[in-house]
Each structure stands twice: as structure tokens, then as C-alpha cells.
């Protein structure tokens, strides 16, 4: 050819191709309730630039988002709201527990705080830290992309709770 390029093609499976597309077009819904939000902003600001991982656009309607970022402390008062937001999201959908409070309740072991959002909704990736460093968040995002590429969306979650992280680890 004129420019030195040869005609070429790649072969793949349709699932792999679709999952590849999915993992690089995560529209996130930021459910931000606490101080972790600052770190979340840092990640999606220009310096760390979450857009490099295809997770660029925040959607403030659950109908338009694939990825629920639960950023900060969730207490029992707001738990029904979180559950509703999760149920309003269209399949396929994923959930990231951002920071110690969302992942486990953090240092709040009291009357008010849900001891980890997986008591309310299924979680795919837990990001540790109080708050997590942006590098940890990006690591979690890449981990989620790996899960999407390898496993794709899992079964309809409205009725059957999805696997917990422990089940997932055992099944690997």
C-alpha cells in the first residue's frame, strides 16, 4: 500500500469484544456523602485524570450510569436512598465501595452507620484507605476493568443478590 500499511484484521469473541467496550465506557454515578468526596474529585480532576481509563463522564441520573461509586459514610438513614439508586440503574451495573467507611463502616462502629455498604447492595470492588490515595482508586478502577473483561456482567441483581467479594475470591 501507498503508506506502507498492510491490510489487517483481528479475530475475537463477541463477549470479549463487548466486555472490552464496556470496561472502557464506564459512566459513573458518584454517590458522595463524606470527606472521601475530596479524593474522588482529585481522581477525576486533571492531575490524576480518571478519563484515561474510560471512566470519564459522571452521570447524575442512575438511569444513565453503569458504575455506582459509593464515596463516603453510609448511615442507616440514607441506606434506603442508596438502595433505590442502585435499583434504578440499568443492567449491566457495577458498584465500587470507595474508602474505609463505604467498605466496612470505617471507624464508625455505632448506632448510625451501616457496617459496609455490602450489607445493603452488592459490591464488586472495595477500595481501602481513609481516604484512599488517588493511585489506590485508579488501581481499583483497573481491577474493576479486569473483572468486567474476565467475567462480564453478572446475573440480574434485582432479586438474587450477587456474589460477595468472599464468594468471588473462593470461586477463583
Amino acid at each position, binding site marked *: 500500500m501507498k503508506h506502507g500499511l498492510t491490510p489487517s484484521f483481528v479475530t475475537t469473541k463477541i463477549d470479549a469484544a463487548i466486555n472490552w467496550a464496556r470496561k472502557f465506557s464506564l459512566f459513573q454515578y458518584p454517590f458522595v456523602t463524606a470527606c472521601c468526596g475530596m479524593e474522588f474529585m482529585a481522581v477525576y480532576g486533571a492531575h490524576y485524570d480518571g478519563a484515561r481509563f474510560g471512566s470519564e463522564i459522571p452521570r447524575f441520573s442512575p438511569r444513565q450510569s453503569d458504575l455506582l461509586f459509593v464515596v463516603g459514610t453510609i448511615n442507616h*438513614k440514607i441506606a434506603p436512598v442508596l438502595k433505590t439508586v442502585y435499583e434504578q440503574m440499568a443492567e449491566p451495573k457495577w458498584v465500587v465501595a470507595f474508602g474505609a467507611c463505604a467498605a466496612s463502616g470505617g471507624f464508625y*462502629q455505632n448506632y*448510625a452507620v451501616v457496617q459496609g455498604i455490602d450489607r445493603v447492595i452488592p459490591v464488586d470492588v472495595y477500595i481501602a484507605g481513609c481516604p484512599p490515595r488517588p493511585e489506590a482508586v485508579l488501581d481499583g478502577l483497573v481491577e474493576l476493568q479486569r473483572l468486567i473483561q474476565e467475567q462480564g456482567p453478572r446475573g440480574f441483581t434485582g432479586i438474587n443478590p450477587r456474589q460477595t467479594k468472599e464468594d468471588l475470591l473462593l470461586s477463583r
Partner: protein
Amino acid sequence: MIDPKGAAPGAVTALLQASFPNAVTGHHAQHGDETVSIQREGMLDLFRFLRDDPRCRFDLMIDLTAVDLYPGSPRFEVVTHLKSIEKGHRLRVKVPIEHGQEEVDSIAGLWVAADWYERECFDMYGIRFKGHPDLRRLLLYPEFKGHPLRKDYDYHLQQPRVPLRPIRERHDYEMMVEYPEGVIESKA
């Protein structure tokens, strides 16, 4: 608690003692900030005096909360902080109340700012404010049972509004409790 012996009463304390001889049960002063402990009966008149008297003029209600002295007696103290912008002085007023009689007069009619403080105090301690215009929970949800800042409330006791999913307990790795769905968590 207030030390009855020692220091001479401050200016506002002395004024209160002269005007309400039986109401003031204790007093204390440190660095010019005075504390008085008063009886529950007739407290509203005393607060009105503090707000309106030209020698007091406490026009700013800074804070209102309670202290649970469990298992001591009196069980609670309702603590109000007042400041006078005009005079520049402060006063802390304590109203001791006993268990089973958790009711004091509302001062929301004197200082509008007291409205939500009293609602929060009711929410957290279960102290009722007589005459409050709208005494509902402020921070917790309506179906919450009990008052969590009381010392006899088990602080592990959670009251979920949505059924909890079954997971393995992470906090206590030795026990590895399997919680069934919808359980109320309690370590007590």
C-alpha cells in the same frame, strides 16, 4: 460538677442570686466565664430575666445540649450557653433533672435559635421540652427506637431501615459471625 465552696460569685451570678434567691443551687467561675446551676421549677422566668434585664442582656443563645451522668444522680444536666453581644459576657446555665422526669421548659420561645437544639437534644437524650412548637427527631429517622446518646443505650445496636444482606462479619476475625438476613446487629 459545680464546686459550692471557694470562689466568690461573678457579677451575673450574684445578680441571679439576689433576684431568684431559691433558684440558684450552685455556681462556678473560671477566667471570667460564669456557670450557674438552677432548679427546673421556674427556669423560664430566670431565662427571661437573663434575656431582658438591662444588666444581663443575653441576646445570643450559643448552644444547648445535655449531659448524661449515668449512673449518677441527677441523671441529666441540660446545659445552655448564653452570650451577650452588647455586654460581652457569657453564662453557662445547667438544669439538673432526674431519671424518669426528663422534661424541662422550652426556651425556644425566648431564643428562636433554641428550636433545633432542643429537637436534637430530644432526639439524642429523650429529654422533652415543654412548650416546644414542634418537638420531633432532628437527625435520626422517625422509626428509630430509643435515644442513642444515653449512656445506657448499647451503641452497637443498629436499627436498619432496609433488610440487611447476609455477609461475613469483618470486624471480628476471630468470631467470623455469619449474620442472617435482616438481623439487628448487637455485640452486647
